[in-house]
């Protein structure tokens, strides 16, 4: 027996410094002294709380501990109920496991009930509908494979494999779902409910908005299908004052007085606060802060964007969860009231589970932002088969349809740290894109870089030129189409190509025209299929 007191042994244990021999001694003392044993148990439990509090899970730990105390006396029926509604604590799960252990029939019964619950959700919830599942699967396939034609490929491969099965797919097993009518009705009910719920709030804020409150934002761009809900729309001059706004359809971009930009895709509901903060209550939103000096207060249903990065997206379409995704820069996201925060880098995403106050990592999947991105990308197509690729798309010669022009935003915003050589190009007239002496880029400010790429035609010969016309929001200050200059500028714009390939427009057959106002670029591709026909376009942001 050592000369150390009970307290000293206990402290050593808690500090993780109790030697093997002393552990046995402490164990013997605990056995002999129930009061000491109880104190030891409490101290160990408390240490665990401290550990969890340090990683931001204190509230959860407390809840779980209290839940465990309460659920100790719950009958098995209630415990199973908690499992079925997804609210069971790990302690409750273990209680159920004890009940199911060695009773396969009971386990099988629970599995059936769980499956039934899932189908009930499928049957009554629009967010769990077959349509929603399919759409979500499509976008996820895009995210996983980085190419748009996954669905087409999926369908063809599955058909090829499955029709070879004995009897193939039994068509009669596929029962029509009458889905359209049901979903439409649900949407109508949803819209009606949203309008009814919003009416009171709208009435409350309308007074403020119509009064003398200063304009805190103004509409920059809208798609032709943009429709606002009456009483929740910007002023006639396109300005927005503090209040609640509801966009029924379309996409609208707004500039806030602080310099930030907010783009929303309808159906969406958002609020502009008196401090020019914005809160997205529902729908899709993209927020852009043009520089570090520009602040932007953005939140969505308990999700606080503490550091918005340069471009951040919010998907608040589903009731139970909100997703945030960083497209450019570094972002920070916190869950209000829980102390849970996450730092997010470019192309990272998190989801907030509102039912359980959880912040979880999810795969980067920008597909939901396609429409909003088309407006935010800063380039519009006027002519030809053009696709504005989503951020994070792999720049590759493969992946597009034959003859399709793909536009990648290579770098949202950068300041060249060295000289950039661009190709020499006269404005206002078509000219052959061929070898030229080049020139140094004049602009020294903030730039954005686009890569315009024609997907080569694998068919023999190209009879007609493929012509495309793109209009950029910002003035074009440099165009690079020669192979060497493209390669030299890759590092400056931070572009990474998926494969080594001959690139550029050097055959002398392709033509290029930059409009006199330097906003529109027309391209006539006539070159061969043996290399990637690419043009880098640099625009000045300020």
């Amino acid at each position: 027996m050592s000369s150390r007191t009970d307290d000293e042994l206990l402290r050593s244990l808690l500090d993780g410094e109790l030697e093997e021999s002393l552990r046995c001694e402490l164990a013997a003392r605990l056995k002999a002294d129930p009061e000491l044993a109880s104190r030891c148990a409490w101290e160990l439990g408390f240490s665990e709380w401290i550990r969890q509090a340090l990683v931001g899970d204190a509230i959860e730990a407390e809840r779980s501990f209290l839940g465990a105390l309460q659920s100790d006396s719950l009958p098995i029926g209630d415990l199973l109920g908690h499992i079925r509604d997804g609210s069971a604590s790990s302690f409750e799960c273990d209680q159920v496991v004890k009940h199911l252990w060695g009773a396969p029939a009971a386990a099988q019964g629970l599995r059936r009930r769980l499956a039934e619950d899932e189908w009930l959700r499928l049957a009554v919830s629009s967010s769990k509908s077959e349509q929603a599942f399919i759409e979500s699967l499509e976008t996820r396939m895009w995210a996983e494979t980085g190419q748009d034609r996954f669905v087409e490929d999926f369908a063809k491969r599955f058909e090829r494999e499955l029709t070879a099965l004995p009897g193939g797919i039994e068509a009669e097993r596929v029962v029509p779902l009458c889905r359209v009518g049901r979903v439409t009705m649900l949407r109508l009910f949803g819209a009606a409910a949203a309008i009814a719920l919003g009416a009171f709030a709208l009435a409350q804020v309308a007074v403020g908005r119509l009064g003398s409150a200063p304009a805190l934002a103004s509409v920059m761009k809208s798609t032709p299908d943009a429709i606002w809900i009456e009483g929740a729309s910007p002023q006639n001059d396109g300005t927005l004052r503090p209040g609640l706004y509801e966009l029924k359809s379309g996409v609208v971009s707004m500039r806030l007085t602080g310099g930030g930009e907010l783009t929303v895709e309808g159906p969406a509901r958002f609020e502009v606060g008196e401090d020019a903060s914005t809160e997205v209550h529902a729908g899709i939103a993209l927020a852009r802060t043009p520089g570090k000096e520009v602040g932007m207060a953005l939140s969505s249903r308990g999700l606080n964007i503490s550091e918005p990065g340069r471009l951040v997206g919010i998907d608040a379409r589903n009731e139970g969860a909100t997703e945030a995704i960083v497209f450019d820069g570094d972002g920070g996201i916190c869950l209000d009231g829980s102390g849970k925060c996450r730092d997010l880098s470019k192309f990272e995403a998190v989801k907030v589970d509102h039912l359980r106050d959880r912040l979880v990592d999810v795969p980067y999947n920008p597909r939901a932002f396609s429409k909003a991105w088309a407006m935010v990308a800063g380039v519009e197509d006027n002519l030809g088969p053009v696709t504005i690729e989503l951020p994070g798309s792999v720049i590759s010669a493969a992946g597009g349809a034959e003859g399709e022009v793909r536009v990648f935003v290579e770098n949202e915003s950068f300041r060249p740290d060295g000289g950039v050589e661009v190709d020499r190009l006269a404005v206002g007239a078509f000219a052959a894109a061929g070898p030229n002496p080049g020139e140094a880029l004049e602009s020294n400010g903030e730039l954005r870089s686009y890569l315009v790429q024609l997907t080569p035609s694998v068919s023999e010969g190209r009879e007609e030129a493929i012509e495309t016309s793109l209009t950029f929001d910002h003035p074009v200050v440099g165009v690079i189409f020669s192979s060497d200059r493209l390669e030299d500028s890759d590092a400056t714009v931070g572009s990474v190509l998926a494969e080594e390939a001959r690139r550029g427009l050097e055959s002398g057959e392709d033509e290029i025209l930059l409009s006199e106002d330097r906003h529109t670029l027309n391209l006539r591709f006539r070159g061969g299929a043996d290399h990637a026909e690419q043009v880098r376009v640099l625009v000045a942001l300020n």
Partner: protein
Amino acid sequence: MTTTDRERFIEQVREHHAGLRGFVRSLGVDPLWVDDVAQEAFIVAYNRLDEFDRARDFGAWLRGIARNLVINERRKDARRKRILSDNLTEVLIASSSANDDEPEEMGDYALARLNALKECVRGLPEKSLRLLRSRYEDEHSAQDIAAAFSMNPPAVRKALERLRTALRECMEERVALSPAR
């Protein structure tokens, strides 16, 4: 992508998603993550389509993939887990079959059952439907539903249990009468 391609794709997913989602849930996956796991199973299936043994049932193959995904969940750190509990999933997985003889309601007849269930739900009285929506669409707890319906929580739980039993019976009856089986 042509309309036909998309229709083919939808048909494939439609054929199997309901059974797969029920199966995934039945292994103790958190209700909020069921669709995520089921979608992952479709993607893994696509990537490994060359390994698919044509002599096997496709739905069973999908369920095998999902089963492995759920088993792997137990190795993840707590923050990334999509299951409610390691121990619960272990016992539920032990009771599931890796072969093709999974109970038919979790197998390839799930779609017919789901359609039957939808018909049954449509026939519910208004109050029952509201109760069901509160629980399964709005994900409200029995406590919250009780407050909204001026009931006490045990009565809500009891009412939901009765509704589930009635819907189960209705679904079985419809499926038994259906010529699709």
